[in-house]
């Protein structure tokens, strides 16, 4: 079971605290979260299924957003952080 944390702004649409999720990939994990929290749909991913530009997903502390992205396998992973990146002005 994965322990998922989302950051403050995303809590408007998703889990308010730590969430336990069973998933075998980042895409699968987001599918599960979107089923539990429908307002998350299209906030973390756009309609092509890719992570939005300023969303960061960390698997056990490693940022996978710019590398394997939603296809990242989660076998053996323990913690997931979904954050918005530092951007804007």
């Amino acid at each position, binding site marked *: 079971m994965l322990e998922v944390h989302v950051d403050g*702004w995303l809590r408007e649409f998703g889990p308010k605290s730590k969430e336990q999720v069973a998933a075998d990939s980042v895409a699968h994990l987001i599918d599960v979260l979107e089923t539990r929290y429908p307002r998350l749909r299209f906030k973390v991913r*756009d309609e092509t299924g*890719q992570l*939005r530009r*300023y969303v960061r997903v960390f698997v056990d502390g490693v940022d996978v957003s710019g590398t394997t992205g939603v296809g990242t396998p989660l076998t053996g992973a323990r913690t997931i952080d979904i954050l918005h990146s530092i951007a804007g002005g």
Partner: protein
Amino acid sequence: MPKDNRLRILVGTRKGTYVVEGDTRRKTWKVGPVSHEGEEIYHVVADPRHPGDLYAAVNNGFWGPTVQRSKNWGKTWKEIATPLAPAKKDRKPEMNESDPATPVKRPINNLWHIEPGIASEPKTLYLGADPHLLFRSSDLGASWEPVDSLNNHPGRKDWAPGFGGPCLHTILLDPRDARRLYVGLSAVGTFRSDDGGQSWTPKNKGVEAPFLPNKYPETGQCVHHVVADAADPDTFYRQDHGGMYVSHDRMEKWVRIGKPLGEDFGFGVASPASTPGKAYFVRLDGKGRTTGLGYFQVQEWNDKTRTWRKLLAPKAFPGDFGVQREGIAADNLDPAGIYVGTTTGQLFVSPDAGKTWRLVPYQFPAIHSVSIANPAGS
């Protein structure tokens, strides 16, 4: 929602939505509900068919675009359905030039314009989006259908973006006939449909595209904004990258009117209900994209006398001001109120068709759009 007699200026900014409340005298203003803090609001519009209902095109840099509606003049907002980029089977895909066999999947980047339907279609909304997409709702935004005839237009392969992206930013409806629609896309031009959006024809004859080898193509012009004359739905005023134009025949041909101004670049234009035959532009310096005069100025076009008039005394408001495509609006009172929002957050108001001007005493974030919710019964 009970009717009330307040006039509201709806201001979409780079950092949120502001509803500015006043009355028919249009001399004092109160900045009312502020919403969508930190989000880019490309357009806010009132639905005159349903007093109290506002729609906002909300573009969040992190979480993407949403359509939102207020049922109480902007006090609270709720996310309603947001259209999605049509699936590949429904729309000719954007082609990947380096690998044409693999189409580029493109999500909707930004929402640009929401247009409530005409009075005879009380549940219709239209929505323009980037990349070059038009949507229609028949249930007040509970669901959206892509307008495939435009979104799959055979000319699409040649459509290029403007500096603001491949946006569909202008939607005009003929108040006499729900079958007649007009749209403006950058940098593509204007199109007209006479059959309820089943087919579309480019309508850019006479409009110069100074940035293309062929200066007068069928499409490729960078239209910035178009409005209809309030008294004559067949007459349109157009601010294009390539100048200021008028059409008297449903956009069949365009006549350039801006040349007496020297450079006739700009983004916005408005035509108030009580001043038929007049349009108001803010001419900008094409390079600096500000008024560039050292002071604020608005130009009035009189279509009957075919003359221009500058409305402000030089140096009345010193500075250099940028105005975007949705940045000029007019109310439907007599005398007309004219409203101009700037990219540096000033909101200018003339309550008397341009004779006098004052600033709403509030510094807004950069203003993307200004529109008016007219008082009930006006």
